[in-house]
């Protein structure tokens, strides 16, 4: 067996271990109080899964000949791994099972999301052939992974602190957050499903600048370009003017539709209450002060790491590769925004007493900024960093 397929298998193993670990965290939190055996098992499984994923990382490194952080698939997988790592550290300090029940699924979601990108190893273009790239990307992902822990605790805090029997902004927004997460699940579901049944289409069209372009769809085509010619697969349901990217919109639509279906089923058939509310009995097991404190510490630990990796090392690399340490490229700007956002959080907290709910909302927002930079800026806003 060659290194690359070994690497792929290790990733699969780690994914399955994370899944089982999550199940054990669920058992651990459903039982009564006290240190539980299932909690320890859950933690051990997560740890072994993490080691397996490290195995994935280094065997892929050896197989490809360069650190596997050079395209969206590799980076997103690595980010998921760093989220697990961040969680393991925090678990080591606080031994909180409830946290595992939120942090592990989010990490799983990120890793599953990564698998939607082309996963073959790519040769590196000259700009990416630099040690600083590896240092920059791994450190940035580590910082983001630790910051993601604050998202998990922030969410727990909000679920715990919200009274679901009364109409409130928090109640509404929390539901929006969960709906978004469910849309990601939906996207992964339909993505895998259409991949399995094979629903690729290619549509040719004439772009704004007169050039003939092609859209390659991997999902059935809901929205296509105006006057598009179907080269293979199915035609468009609706044609849209050319300044809208019909292909990306198609993906977004499928995510929304599948997310909506999933949400409706969960909300009205399975649980018969708000998704956030179903987590309330679990969230109640972490006390508010602890959740608040973990959030803050995760930011206090994660932010310096993120700034070092995502800004400082990034600038050193940019200086070597592009002769300028800063170029206002969208990805750079969003890294700056991420930093400023968390700086805003810290000052609000210390200087203006924003603790508790407000502070929890800020860390949830911070994670949204990170994900925005990872997904949206890479896929939608073009720039030097758009790998895919």
């Amino acid at each position, binding site marked *: 067996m060659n290194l690359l397929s070994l690497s792929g298998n290790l990733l699969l193993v780690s994914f399955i271990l994370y899944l089982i670990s999550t199940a054990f965290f669920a058992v651990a939190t459903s039982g009564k109080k006290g240190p539980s055996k299932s909690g320890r098992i859950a933690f051990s499984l997560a740890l072994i899964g993490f080691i397996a994923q490290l195995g994935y990382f280094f065997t892929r490194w050896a197989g490809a000949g360069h650190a596997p952080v050079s395209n969206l698939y590799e980076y997103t997988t690595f980010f998921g791994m760093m989220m697990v790592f961040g969680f393991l550290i925090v678990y080591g300090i606080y031994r909180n099972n409830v946290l595992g029940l939120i942090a592990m699924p989010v990490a799983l979601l990120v890793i599953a999301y990564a698998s939607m990108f082309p996963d073959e190893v790519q040769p590196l273009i000259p700009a990416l052939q630099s040690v600083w790239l590896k240092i920059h990307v791994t450190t940035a992902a580590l910082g983001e992974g630790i910051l993601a822990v604050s998202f998990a605790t922030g969410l727990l805090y909000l679920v715990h602190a919200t009274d679901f029997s009364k109409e409130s902004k928090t109640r509404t927004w929390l539901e929006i957050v969960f709906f978004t997460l469910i849309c990601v699940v939906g996207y992964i579901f339909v993505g895998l499903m259409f991949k399995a049944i094979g629903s690729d289409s290619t549509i040719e069209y004439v772009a704004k600048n007169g050039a003939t372009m092609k859209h390659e769809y991997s999902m059935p085509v809901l929205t296509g370009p105006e006057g598009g010619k179907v080269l293979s697969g199915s035609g468009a349901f609706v044609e849209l003017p050319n300044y809208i990217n019909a292909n990306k919109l198609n993906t977004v639509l499928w995510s929304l539709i599948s997310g909506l279906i999933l949400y409706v089923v969960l909300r009205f058939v399975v649980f018969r209450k708000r998704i956030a509310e179903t987590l309330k009995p679990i969230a109640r097991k972490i006390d508010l002060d602890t959740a608040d404190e973990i959030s803050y510490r995760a930011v206090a630990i994660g932010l310096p790491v993120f700034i070092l990796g995502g800004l400082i090392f990034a600038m050193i690399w940019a200086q070597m590769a*592009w002769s300028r340490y800063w170029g206002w490229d969208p990805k750079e700007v969003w890294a700056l925004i991420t930093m400023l956002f968390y700086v805003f959080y810290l000052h609000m907290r210390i200087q203006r007493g924003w603790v508790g709910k407000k502070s929890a909302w800020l860390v949830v927002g911070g994670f949204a900024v990170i994900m925005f930079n990872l997904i949206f800026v890479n896929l939608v806003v073009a720039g030097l960093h758009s790998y895919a």
Partner: protein
Amino acid sequence: MMQKEFKPIDMRYEEAELRSNRRSRSSISRTIDRVWAFFSSVKVGLWLIGLIILASGVGTIFPQEMYIPQNLPPAEYYQKEYGSAGLLYYTLGFHRLFESWWYIGLITLLLLSIIIVSIDRFFPLYRALKKQPVIRTKRFMDGQRFGASASGSQDQIDGLEPLLKKKGYKVKRKDGALFAEKQRFGRYGPYINHIGLVLFFGGAMLRVVPGMHADELIWLREGDTLPIQATDSQYYLKSDAFNLEFYDPKKENAKFQEALERAGSNVPKNYETELRLYERTGTLENGKPKLEEVKSGSTEVNHPFTFGDYQVFQEQYASEPEFISMSFDIMNQKTGKPVDSIKIDLRDPKQEYDLKEGYKVELIDFFPDFVVEDGVPNTKSARLINPAYVFNITSPEHPKGERSLVGIRMNVGGDDNQYAMEFAGTEFADISGLRVKKDLTLPFLYVGGIIFMAGLIIGMYWPHRRLWVRSENGQVEIAGYTNKNALALQKEANHALTAVGLPELEDRQKLREEGETA
């Protein structure tokens, strides 16, 4: 036992008097006070951060001007590409947002705010931390978030001293009371990081000082030598060769095959320019510069070529190589035999080429990048990528000459002539886009960046912890303080306290909250 009403003390500045709280009498100093108070207000600082976040986000909605293709005027580009939203974006000047006066203004205000807020708080804080009394008032002790109180003895307090010292605390004693402290320097972290930030941005702004920064893009053809304007033409660069290597799907290890197929086009593996650096040491008799070789080497992506304060970066390369010479045979179309041949050096084309007895080729017109515009031959650019010529061939049979327009796969008017130009060969040269840079502000950025990171880490990873213990009439009062990580303080303190038989620290804030909800 229920705690008496807990009245927390704001410990951020140790109850010190801040400059921004001062109100002077005279009107001038009152104005200064107001300005000072404005900038040292954290509220103002946070507004600035919020506005910068918003503005920066807006700056990424559409690409900035520097990232759009150069072949259209920006106004047209934004409208064509993004419709009326694009036009609005352009009209509001957002296409150059990060260079706009108001964005730079916001950053400047933020820096001012950071400087003033830091001065405002650092000195009072420093003084307060420098001379801390061992014995604190009861109000102070009771106002700490962590504390405990129990009957106990002086011996127990004495017993704490070695235990806390072992944990790294510095312990001071007075009249039996105890004060233990560690990692005080952690409190200075924010100030250190603010200074680093100011140095960093200040350094970046130094770029506007003449001589600090130079930046030039040079398109250098293989074999050419060009002056570096950024060095006042004191230095010249010559390209010996430009080497471009692509990943070859056939040769590359099988593992990259799939990715290379997906990419469709060629993926570059490496490109580099072999360089020679010359210094101008004088002027030759023909008026040309006298050059002396100083250094040679190569520049490739991620590995610039360095000389003095300058670096030469391999930034880009022209997608099409340029022609440097073209050879032609002059054919007698009647006999089908060549009469003679010429070679045109395109970098320095002559007007006339003398051939053997009675024959001559005149170069009437030359188009480096040929197009026909409105039926008239013209050139699109000065680059030698599609050369075309108007020749006039004089021969014994045609003393006035025969004209033709000759280009690549094109010969207009030549068919009817007796003599025609026929391609005999070409030489190409690759063109490398080199970025020559000097940036004397970089050391400031390095120093600023290091100080910033150091401050950040000190402030975040070294929490300041303190413990006060004293006894009065057989009652031992304990108070604890930490600016971060309450859990660790409790752990450390409780370990020592229980070892000598004193009660553990209580979290009074939590007790109060629980009292409220109960």
